[in-house]
């Protein structure tokens, strides 16, 4: 990252992300009171959560400008995260049946 000591980092993006996160929180709570059908509710809530999480990761955690080394590491754990998340459910959903 190109930050050097003594220079003031640009904090405008942080404030904007903060506002966005607050707004998204309100939206997701508001939506939950609409009692959407289950699938829609899950999809929407997870979508919003993902957007929020990406904002935190990209801006607060500076992933946008992070080195490739770290991105590769995270990509690796993202892949395995996917496997551990999905495969157990898939095996449970593929049992021997008569």
């Amino acid at each position, binding site marked *: 990252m190109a930050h050097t000591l003594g220079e003031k980092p640009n904090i405008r993006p942080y404030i904007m992300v903060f506002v966005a996160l607050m707004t998204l929180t309100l939206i997701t709570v508001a939506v939950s009171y609409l009692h959407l059908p289950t699938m829609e509710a899950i999809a929407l809530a997870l979508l919003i959560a993902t957007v929020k999480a990406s904002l935190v990761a990209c801006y607060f955690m500076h992933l946008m400008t992070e080195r490739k080394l770290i991105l590769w590491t995270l990509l690796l754990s993202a892949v395995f995260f996917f496997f551990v998340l999905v495969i157990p459910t898939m095996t449970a959903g593929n*049992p*021997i049946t*008569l």
Partner: protein
Amino acid sequence: MDRPLGLPEIASAHGAELDHATLLVHGLMFVMFVGWGLLFLYMLWKFRASRHPTAVYEGLKSKSSTYAEWAVIASEAILLVGFSIPLWSQRVDDFPAPSESTEVRVVGEQFAWNVHYPGPDGIFGRTDIGMVDAISNPLGLDRKDPSAADDVTTINQLHLPVDKPAIIHISSKDVIHSFMLNEFRVKQDAMPGMTIPLWFIPTVTTAEMRANRGQEDANYEIACAQLCGIGHYRMRGFVTIHDQSGFDAWMASEQALLAEDEGGDDFWD
């Protein structure tokens, strides 16, 4: 060879195919081990320091190892696609019609196998864990349910007719067990909270097996293959394969016993 690799004798219809696949893999393993092994010993002898004092920087230049690796890949692919996957699918997808099969429930518990037949009506009676009694009613069978009236239960005794598909529904009351019939090439974990079906066709009756082995009192056994506590090692049951008339006779005798118990009353209540 009668029993290649010491595999147990086969007493089920699918056993031969399964063993065939097992033997093929072992063939591949044998070829690889002997091939690489001979090369290994040859190199140890040929390139020992006292005989070959200066090493060659480039080492081996031949491409043959690459070919060998491709051969291994090809053999594994054939074993996988040509044998293992179809055989597995046959075990778990191609169930015979229940109407043409003997259906049985087997429920594992520490440390016994409870066997439950639907009886002549072909319907398993209702069970309820509230009614379980460790001794008199280990399955919690509700005898008041009409379809339960003719249900036969045994402990550690599985009876099946020969040459007719058997469908066995495996489950467990407490911990994980594993239902293993060695000669029938059957193994299925008994998972608490799940009922998992398996099927096979017994092809050799107990009487024939005794004659073949020349042992009067030999039995097919149910083994428990999953660690299930201190009695795991003695969680053994027995399988008796009858010819059809023998099985019918056995079932009839069980029905007669049931009727007797009915008369004696208060046994089930």
